[in-house]
């Protein structure tokens, strides 16, 4: 937490090196997250650039009392992705078109199963399981009441489990 504050003080003071190192650390994670939301690589790059540029230009919009810079970043990326959808597809519902993620490369049945969930469930599970975001951070990123996060996570896990079981049956039980 103290490190986060120190980092954000540097960024707020226009320290480009500080922002650059934060970008290098977080950008790959945001890119993968956005791939799941948007699918289209060009859209992912556009939204990435817009998200980081906005934060670089207006770092004071982040309130450290409300969460970590990383959670703020994912929340900002999610909102930018919704804006992109609204402008280009006429809908701000993330994932209304199934994202194209190369599951063969990933080589995991669970990724295939994940793509069959609703966008909200995908986002929630990805941020919790892969990015390790806490309940508080998920509430911040997804604009949800804290008490709702646990029940939504349960619903998402249950949905993924159901799809996963069906997929395993079809593939003869191969994991």
């Amino acid at each position: 937490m103290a490190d986060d504050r120190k980092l954000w003080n540097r960024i707020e003071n226009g320290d480009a090196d500080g922002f650059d190192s934060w970008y290098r650390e977080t950008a790959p994670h945001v890119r993968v997250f956005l791939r799941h939301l948007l699918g289209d690589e060009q859209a992912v790059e556009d939204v990435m650039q817009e998200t980081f540029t906005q934060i670089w230009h207006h770092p004071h919009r982040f309130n450290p009392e409300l969460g970590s810079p990383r959670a703020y970043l994912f929340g900002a990326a999610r909102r930018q992705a919704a804006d992109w959808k609204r402008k280009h597809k006429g809908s701000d519902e993330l994932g209304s078109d199934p994202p194209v993620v190369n599951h063969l490369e990933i080589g995991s049945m669970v990724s295939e199963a994940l793509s069959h969930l609703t966008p909200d469930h995908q986002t929630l599970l990805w941020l919790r399981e892969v990015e390790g975001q806490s309940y508080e951070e998920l509430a911040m990123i997804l604009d949800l009441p804290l008490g709702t996060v646990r029940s939504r996570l349960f619903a998402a896990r249950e949905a993924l489990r159901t799809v996963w079981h069906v997929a395993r049956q079809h593939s003869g039980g191969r994991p």
Partner: protein
Amino acid sequence: MSCNDAAEYVSALCDGEMIPPAVAQHIATCPECQVRLNDYLALSVELRRAGSLELAGAASSPHWTKPQNRVATWWQKGWGTMRIPKLAFGVLIAGVVVLASALAVTKARAHNTGTVVLLSTAGPNGPLGADCPMSTQDNSKAMCSWYGHVGSQFLAYKIRLLSRDGGRVLLGIRTLSYPLSSGPRNLSSFANDNEPGKKVWFEPGKPLKFDVPDVGTLTFKGQWLDRVPILGTLDPGPNELRLGRPLLLKDNVVFGDLSSSIGGYYSQDDPDLAIVIYVQGQGRFVLSELPIKGAVEAQVAMSRISFEAAGHSWQLVSGVPVCRSNHLWVLYQPHYQLHFTMKEHIGVGNARLVQSKPGLWVPQD
């Protein structure tokens, strides 16, 4: 305790949460819950594995480029490959510097001979309103005024340019402030009183500090212009919100002319500052590019802002393009109590927005 009752706690267990002892007891002895727990854990591991693979694939991310680095690289490259003698290049640069200095002096002198002071005002928490031009030659364009909230205080000020002495001007500054908690007051006497107030000399180019009891220090900055500016460019800036001689239409009928309230043209580029339209007895509208809690989305088509509120269609028609975005957020607060009485039935001000939660802002007052 049934498995259905325990299922959500199984999920919470995977997140490292503590669960009630009775539920923990059930999960420990129930085969069905054990299967669910193992499934969740296996899925969690698989998801992290998949994530790790995807992250590995994203390792070739583009670097965050800094303008300073680009300039340094360009300069270093140019210096290294220069094909003329470096001494000649140095003389050339010195010549350019001398010429530029002469131009700067000429420009400064031209500014000193300007006839209009463009005044910007900041309070303890940031800018107050837009820059305001005051003419040294035209008395009808020699006054700036503003009213709004500064922290827990209501503040109104009137600044009149009284006279000029070379590169400085004599300003008459009148202020009125009171705690918002003391309730609304009638500002008619303040608005109609033409007494100059406290007289201070102000030299554009040098900040002037002015203390207002209970509010804090106001900082005035200024610059000389050759004429009263009319408008900015046609293209709004990145965060700019602006209005030029705006009219407010309610159900396609003119509801109010806001021109006199903003002095013809209003512009701001602080994204945390919202434009506020006050309507006597009917609350206020708060407009911003930031999503405001409880706001409706307004469509922006160049110089026209359209939205629905309180069962009516509203349009704010401006003489200039309003902003770069094609939408704004408009919060209508019909029960908002004005802390002053306006001369007109409609007026414009601004309000600072603060983030109440991620992605959502509220007016500070």
